[in-house]
């Protein structure tokens, strides 16, 4: 019988400081045991419980692509006063952490195939979106998806994640990427859009036909983005959101992450807007 509570030992192989204020770091974890690497697989949108032994565990969306089987990446925001996120930020390359998962449903790749994909991200919630984009862009998968359009915004240029990758994406001709910031100073040297994500979306007017939209970002962004999508004709069945709740077990047993009868850790974290509208608004 597999023990769902036992973490896999993972070694921190690389740490990338993502933002100027150092509040976000990406941890690239390698498998300590080869057999774990062979067995581990996931779909974009799933998360894992990452733990510092002796401190605690916390759920983080998997930020790397499932096509990369050698490592698993997480981008972690250091929560002020947060036990696990602070301990992770203090860890060095070579340190061994625990990882349980993958958990949750992930994005419905089967249904999304053959459709155009619109990705709307804000702030540091871009982690699983990065996994999804890199998955779709992989040469084995690209042909299975239609047009890919990405609108990604942050408060200021320094807070955009994965800058090198974004630059690479911008060079590609099989994807349309719009980067935007709420504000910038001349010193930033910013050449992209300025304006909040919902406004940029409204101006871009992406076509709704045969399109799946994935929206991940801070609550305010989501609140103002959804009406724009509605106005543009996107149906609630094809608007996907990824939720966050306080979690412990990750497998629908410890009882704390439910919205109505759904457990976000097990039945989510990805829900369509149509599914969410059937649930109590307790999140």
């Amino acid at each position, binding site marked *: *019988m597999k023990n769902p509570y036992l973490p896999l030992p993972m070694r921190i192989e690389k740490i990338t400081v993502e933002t100027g204020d150092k509040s976000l770091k990406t941890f690239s974890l390698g498998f300590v045991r080869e057999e774990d690497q062979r067995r581990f697989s996931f779909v974009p949108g799933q998360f894992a419980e990452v733990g510092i032994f002796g401190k605690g565990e*916390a759920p983080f969306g998997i930020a790397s692509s499932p096509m990369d089987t050698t490592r698993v990446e997480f981008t972690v925001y250091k929560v002020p006063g947060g036990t696990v*996120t602070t301990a992770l930020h203090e860890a060095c390359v070579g340190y*061994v952490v625990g990882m349980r998962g993958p958990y949750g449903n992930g994005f419905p790749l089967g249904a999304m195939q053959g459709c155009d994909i619109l990705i709307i991200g804000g702030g540091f919630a871009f982690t699983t979106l990065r996994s999804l984009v890199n998955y779709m862009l992989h040469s084995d998968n690209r042909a299975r998806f239609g047009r890919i359009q990405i609108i990604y915004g942050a408060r200021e240029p320094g807070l955009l994640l994965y800058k090198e990758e974004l630059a690479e994406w911008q060079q590609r001709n099989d994807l349309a990427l719009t980067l935007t910031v709420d504000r910038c100073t001349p010193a930033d040297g910013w050449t992209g859009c300025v304006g909040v994500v919902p406004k940029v979306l409204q101006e871009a007017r992406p076509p709704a036909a045969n399109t799946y939209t994935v929206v991940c970002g801070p609550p305010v962004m989501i609140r103002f983005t959804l009406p724009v999508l509605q106005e543009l004709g996107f149906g609630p069945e094809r608007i996907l959101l990824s939720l966050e*709740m306080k979690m412990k077990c990750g497998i629908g047993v410890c009882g704390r992450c439910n919205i109505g009868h759904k457990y976000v850790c097990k039945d989510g974290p990805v829900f369509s807007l149509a599914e969410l509208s059937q649930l109590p608004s307790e999140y």
Partner: protein
Amino acid sequence: MIIRKAAVAKFLDGLLKEYAVYIPRRREGYSEYTPLDPGSGYFWQGLNTQKPPKELLFPHGETLYSYRLRSDGVELRTHFDEEKRVLFGIRPCDAKGFCYLDRVFTRQDYQDVYYQTRRNNTVLIGLACLAPTTTCFCTSLGGGPFDTEGLDLLWVDLGERYAVRVLAPKGEALIKGRPEFVPAGEADWQAVRELEGGALGKMAPVLDLSGLKKRLDENYSDSVWDRVFEKCIGCAACTYLCPTCHCFDLSYEVEGSQGLCVRTWDSCAFPLFTLHASGHNPRPTGKERFRQRVMHKFRYFVENWGVMSCVGCGRCIIHCPVNLDIRDVLRQIIAGVSA
């Protein structure tokens, strides 16, 4: 089968060679399941113990694994409690409670190895309730004082003897070939039926919960929630002592470079249960937390598992420090009383 009361101590001493036997006992005003010592005899009271026997399968606190940090990584060790156990004298409602925990802890997708190991090694000997109390309402939830769900054997007190109903292979194996048991006659089963009728007659009238689920489907935003929780002080006694509540927390106990990952009971009655690291809390006040408790038991559990996760044991009624009676709450909800 039939066993004379005078022969029970011998039967139990026999069991002790292979099993640890736990029986409900009262000590200094407090009652719980405690291990039986060989030769100690037994004092069996049909007890609605303060603490439910839940902790024998799902302990209040347990180690999931120990870890030791090493220069080249980490060493993890698991420990499973494989003690072979007999729970002797469990009430039908508490046994039914285990059936609900089974649904949660032994699912298709994830098996809780810790729970399941204990569950597989445990035999449940029930004792029929001859004297239900005023807080018992098992019959409102599909149970009854002679209910057999989840039990391996059900014993019925016939005065000088017990009638024993064999309900599952585990129970059969326990008494097979034991000289203390002799076949029961038709008169014995007739006596059992009469006792059952008598016990049912002592139960409070059945609460009609048939309309409850539908009400709960519709009343999430009702003003009834603004009132029913008001007395609640959020102590969580009702959930800790409930035989079907399964929420838990995971944390570490640390000693230098080694430590334990421990699982402890937790409760939806606590504000920290759902507090996000950002400071946001989807259940910020007692109202949302109390609603969650009721909704989980009587609506969400029904949606996920087809049954209400309450067995009507009455513990939450007896032990609530502010006398918040779940039956009153359910009545108010069904009546749809709005302020």
